Every structure is written in structure tokens, then in C-alpha cells.
């Protein structure tokens, strides 16, 4: 920095030092201290070519594609699913009619846990938090009239990801579509389930084997499919800071890479199909810095630590969803505004696809109206704001670059801690990330309770006698009964012997080192149910029980 700027900066600092400020400390949501002002001083260390580079080039800080949104906008992908396959199918068609460009399936809790709709534990939960899918038959109806060679579909499914993916592949076969052309993503990130979202099936070790099987199967048979979406979203929703989201997600990513390499796969054969999924929370600049730091760390580690040679393995592509946990039940219309700037942060951070939350999500699943406003929010950013006209427009900002560097540096501190605990799987077994997240969640709530953090409508600017003026989606209670009826019909109609043989084959495969996707797909084609297939996996591999975490 020139001496002239330096001395002028000192003068300015002296001048303002005695002036009162609103707070004693200014921090990001993650607790990174924020200075009054950022100057060329703060980015002096940056080497443009090494640290930022050009879009589509290593280390991808400025974006993963050459032309970014000038070439093609992000995929507008609204996560949705409720009630029966028919209900959700209707919502998908509605969203596509209104300009949505990709599908994203939300499954109900029984499905997420690999349980059929008629399992006793499913009572009261069928179709409530997402759509109920218990067999290939349900999957066929979910995508009825939607050509699976024309859309890309993301499925938020983890414990039983291999099974639901098999349902999808088989549903495409029924439409006469070969798996080679299918495009989409299965979340398939079991590590963050143990950490945060808690919908698991079997213990970590066999889970990792199934994950590696899907990676290997995908690279051969479904080459356009993202076989994993390593997710920070749920970690953040569970209460982590941006920094913890960044560090734990990347650490999970490294664990999958290591598992693939250990299983004898070539890193460049599976890593290009890795994708990521991040949260976009309230702190606008911190979020943008987080995405940029994530891309840079991933590229460097993939190249240097794991020896990937294919640039596609270095490139971190990610989906973003605005932060559900920041929405308020009070004055829910305000949520439209929160979502808008969170979405803007994701776009300025270079996301590949985006889900915008609906204003009513603290009250129920989104109504059609709320969902449409959320989709419109993305379209407004894309077509009216002008932010898509140039690539990575915030690069070079003294503040953004300095924050990007700081998040990167602090993420490495976490990597070091995780390494000392014996790697991410061991750290999870010891409850390390879980405790860190619970602690952050408590601190966040305390700051709100103490009014150190203002939440408009909740602890400040409260409307007494608030009247709710937005529609609320109701799930038809008939859905559960109808699902049960359909399932029992299916069990009667299908070829029972074929179901039995394919399940036996799967059982044998579990005991060998065979790729499990093949027998799972066979059982699927015979209309074995989700619960039956998952039942075999649990029978052989055991069920996961959460270790008690004291907080």
C-alpha cells in the first residue's frame, strides 16, 4: 500500500476514534470481528492469479464456469413435496408452468428413514413433511407426464438414497429413457445426517460403503448424475455458524474422497460428479465470502492433497437454499424480504442452482401462493436487478476479499482439530461437530433473547394482536389411508416370488463386496418396497443409534 494511503488512513482513524458507535463490537453472524473500514491494506497479501484467477479456472474463486450467468442463469429449483405422489406431481407441473427450470423432491419422514407408509412408526407422518414414496409405483406416479430425459431432478434423500435413486432410474426405464441421459442429484450425504439432519439408516461404516457403491455405479451407468451433494445446509439449520458450515461440509467432502480412493477408485472418475449444497443465511457479505472461500479450498485440496488431475474434480459446483431457520412466524410477509437478500447473496456467491424459501414455512408447508412469490424472487434477481451482467462483481472489494481469506484461514483451524480427532468419521462418533453446533445454536438464541441480536417482529418492532393474513396449506388426512390402501394392493398384485428372490440376492450382495446398486435396482423392478429393501440393509448392517450428546 502506498505510504500516502497509509498515512491518510492513520489520520482518518485518529479523527473517528473518539466518535460514538451503535455497538461496542461489530461481528458477522459467525463472530468474525468486522472493522470500521477496509482499505487496500487488507488485500495486500492477495496474489491475483494464485488466489482469485479467472472464472472457470483454478482455483475457481470467481466462479466455476467461464461465462457464469452471462452464459446461462442458475437453475431455479424449488424444493417441494407433500401429500401423495399425485399432489406433488401437480405442484411440479404448476412450478414448471411458471418458469421453474429444475425439480427438487422433498420426501416425507417415513421415506427419509426408509420406512413404508404402512409401517407403525409412520402413523401421522405420511405425506406431512414431503411426499410419501414407498415403491417404484409411487415414483412412476410422481413423475407422470414429466419427461425424465428433459428435466433435471434433485432428490433430498440420504439413508435410503441408493433405493430412491433406483426407483427413479426404474421409473425412467418405464418411460423408455436410458439411465445414461438422466440428469440430477441425490443428496446421499450420510455424514451430515449423523451431524445434523438425523435421518439415517445404518451405521457410518456400511453407509460409506453404500455411498461408494453409488459413486462407482453412477460414473459407469448414470454419468450425468451427481451422486452426492455434500451438504452444509442442515448443519447450518441445526444452528452452526457460517464458518462451521464451511469447515464441516468440506471436511465431510474430504471424507468421501478418501473413502472413494480407499475403495480403489480413481479420484478423477468420481470427484467430477460431486456437488455441494449450502445455506444462505442473513449476514449478506459473510455468505458471499463463504461460497468464494469454499470453492478455493476445495480446488486446492483436490489438486494438492488428493492429486486430482481433471479440472472438473477441482471445481466445486453447488446448490443453495435460503435459510429456513431465519424465517419468523411473526409478520410472515417480512420473510419475503429476508429471502430476497439471502437469494441475492447466493447469486453474488456464484451458485449453480437455488431454492428460495416461502414466507409461510415457519407455519406449515408452503402454499401455492407463497411458493410462487419465492420463485418470482429469483426471477426478479435474474432479470431485473442487473447483478447477472458481470461475473463475480464483488471480487476486489477490500471487505469481501478480506472476509474470504479469514473464513478460509479459520476453516483450516477446524480441519486441524478434526485431524487430531482422527478424521471426520471419528469426530462425528465423538460428537465433536454436534457439540460445536449445539453450542452455537444456544449462543444465537441467547443473543436474540438478550436483544443483542435484533429480529424484526420477534424481539423488536413487534405487532401486538397480529392477525395472520396468508393462506396455509393443509395436508388431506386421506393421504395416509390412501397410501396404505395402495401399498396393500401392490403387495397383492406383484410377483411375490420375484420380490423374494431379488431381496435374497440383495442380502447375499450385502455380505460380499458386490456393488449394491445392482441388486437394489433388481428388487426395485420387482416392486419390492422401500421398507423391504431398507429392511434387508438394516438386517445385515444393523441400525444406527445416536450416541448421547451432552450439551
Amino acid at each position, binding site marked *: 500500500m502506498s505510504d500516502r494511503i497509509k498515512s491518510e488512513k492513520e489520520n482518518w482513524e485518529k479523527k473517528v476514534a473518539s466518535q460514538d458507535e451503535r455497538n461496542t463490537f461489530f461481528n458477522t453472524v459467525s463472530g468474525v470481528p468486522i472493522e470500521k473500514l477496509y482499505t487496500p491494506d487488507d488485500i495486500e497479501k492477495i496474489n491475483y492469479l494464485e488466489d482469485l484467477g479467472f472464472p472457470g479456472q483454478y482455483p475457481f474463486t470467481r466462479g466455476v464456469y467461464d461465462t457464469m450467468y452471462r452464459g446461462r442463469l442458475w437453475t431455479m429449483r424449488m424444493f417441494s413435496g407433500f401429500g401423495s405422489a399425485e399432489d406433488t406431481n401437480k405442484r411440479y407441473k404448476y412450478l414448471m408452468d411458471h418458469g421453474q427450470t429444475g425439480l427438487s423432491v422433498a420426501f416425507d*419422514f*417415513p421415506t*427419509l*428413514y426408509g*420406512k413404508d407408509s404402512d409401517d407403525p*412408526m*409412520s*402413523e*401421522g*407422518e405420511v405425506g*406431512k*413433511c414431503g411426499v410419501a414414496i414407498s415403491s417404484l409405483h409411487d415414483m412412476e406416479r410422481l413423475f407422470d407426464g414429466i419427461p425424465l430425459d428433459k428435466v433435471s431432478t434433485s432428490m433430498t434423500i440420504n439413508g435410503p438414497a441408493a433405493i430412491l435413486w433406483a426407483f427413479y432410474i426404474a421409473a425412467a426405464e418405464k418411460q423408455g429413457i436410458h439411465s445414461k441421459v438422466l440428469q440430477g442429484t441425490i443428496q446421499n450425504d450420510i455424514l451430515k445426517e449423523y451431524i445434523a*439432519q*438425523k*435421518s439415517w439408516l445404518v451405521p457410518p461404516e456400511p453407509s460409506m460403503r453404500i455411498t461408494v457403491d453409488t459413486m462407482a455405479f453412477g460414473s459407469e451407468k448414470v454419468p450425468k448424475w451427481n451422486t452426492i451433494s455434500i451438504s452444509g445446509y442442515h448443519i447450518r*439449520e*441445526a*444452528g452452526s455458524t457460517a464458518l462451521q458450515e464451511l469447515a464441516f461440509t468440506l471436511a465431510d467432502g474430504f471424507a468421501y474422497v478418501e473413502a472413494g480412493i480407499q475403495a480403489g477408485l480413481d479420484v478423477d472418475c468420481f470427484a467430477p460428479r460431486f456437488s455441494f449444497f449450502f445455506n444462505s443465511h442473513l449476514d449478506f457479505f459473510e455468505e458471499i465470502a463463504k461460497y468464494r472461500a469454499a470453492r478455493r479450498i476445495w480446488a486446492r485440496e483436490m489438486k494438492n492433497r488428493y492429486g486430482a488431475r481433471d479440472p472438473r474434480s477441482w471445481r466445486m459446483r453447488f446448490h443453495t437454499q435460503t435459510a429456513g*431457520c431465519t*424465517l*419468523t*412466524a*411473526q409478520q410472515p410477509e417480512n420473510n419475503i424480504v429476508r429471502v430476497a437478500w439471502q437469494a441475492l447473496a447466493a447469486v453474488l456467491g456464484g451458485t449453480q442452482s437455488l431454492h428460495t424459501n416461502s414466507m409461510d414455512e*415457519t*407455519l*406449515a*408447508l408452503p402454499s401455492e401462493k407463497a411458493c410462487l412469490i419465492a420463485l418470482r424472487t429469483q426471477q426478479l434477481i435474474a432479470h431485473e436487478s442487473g447483478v447477472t451482467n458481470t461475473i463475480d462483481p464483488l471480487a476486489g472489494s477490500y471487505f469481501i476479499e478480506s472476509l474470504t481469506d479469514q473464513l478460509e484461514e479459520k476453516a483450516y483451524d477446524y480441519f486441524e482439530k478434526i485431524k487430531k480427532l482422527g478424521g471426520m468419521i471419528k469426530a462425528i462418533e465423538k460428537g465433536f461437530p454436534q457439540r460445536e453446533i*449445539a453450542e452455537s*445454536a*444456544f449462543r444465537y*438464541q*441467547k443473543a*436474540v*433473547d438478550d436483544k443483542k441480536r435484533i*429480529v424484526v*417482529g*420477534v*424481539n423488536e418492532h413487534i405487532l401486538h394482536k397480529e392477525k*395472520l393474513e396468508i393462506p*396455509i396449506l393443509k*395436508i388431506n388426512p386421506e393421504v395416509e389411508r390412501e397410501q396404505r390402501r395402495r401399498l396393500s394392493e401392490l403387495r397383492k398384485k406383484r410377483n411375490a416370488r420375484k420380490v423374494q428372490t431379488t431381496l435374497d440376492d440383495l442380502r447375499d450382495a450385502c455380505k460380499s463386496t458386490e456393488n449394491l446398486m445392482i441388486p437394489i435396482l433388481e428388487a426395485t423392478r420387482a416392486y419390492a418396497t422401500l421398507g423391504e429393501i431398507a429392511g434387508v440393509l438394516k438386517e445385515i448392517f444393523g441400525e444406527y443409534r*445416536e450416541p*448421547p450428546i451432552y*450439551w
Partner: protein
Amino acid sequence: MAKKLRILLAKPGLDGHDRGIKVVARALRDAGMEVIYTGLHQTPEMIVEAAIQEDVDGIGLSILSGAHRTLFSKVLELMKERGIEDKLLFGGGIIPQEDVEALMKMGVGMLFGPGTPTQEIVKYVQKTFGVRETQ
């Protein structure tokens, strides 16, 4: 010294959202109560059984899965069956107002939605049992 209030906090059903319940557990404990947290995936039977075994004063359920009507009714029913309907049953989660009213009519205590200050929950529990606020 008065006996400490004992509260069982539980996650019924398949819902894995446990951020809120952990925060509430800690707030109740910090306010001097004894808190027993069941962990995830409890059936109504397991919850009522635990309430009896632990001899608690109240049960708090956290449900963000939409299954609140089924699960609260079941727990309430079992509490009656096992003769502990005098204990407080309260909770929180994503529960539409209409359902809140219906559940409260059935005899469920307060149901707290998102954005509730933890102190409000602490005060509610203390007030229910006539405990003077500890500040």
C-alpha cells in the same frame, strides 16, 4: 428448599429437528429445573413410560414434522390410560394456529412456535407449578 421441578423433553415420531429442543432443555436447566431429554424417535408409549419412570412433573414435546395432531393426542390418551393426566403436557414446533387451538381444547398446555424467547417457556413452566421466578 423446594423440590426441583422435573421436566421430560421428548422428540416423538421420526422428526429429526432437534435444535429447538436442545436450546429449550438448556434454558430450563439453567433456570434450575431437572431436565431429562429422551433423544430422537420416541414412540408415544416410550415417552409416557419414561415420564412415569422418571416421575416428572411435566412433559414437553417438540414436533416440526406436521404429525402434531396424531402424536399429541396419542400421548394425551396414554397419559390418561396410565393415570398421569394430572401432569403438564406442553410443547412446541411448527404448528398452525388452528391446530394449536384444537390441541389446547383437548387438554394440551401451551404450544410455543418459532421465535419464542426461551424465558417465556421458562416462565410458563414455573408459573404452572407456582414457582416464583428465579432471576
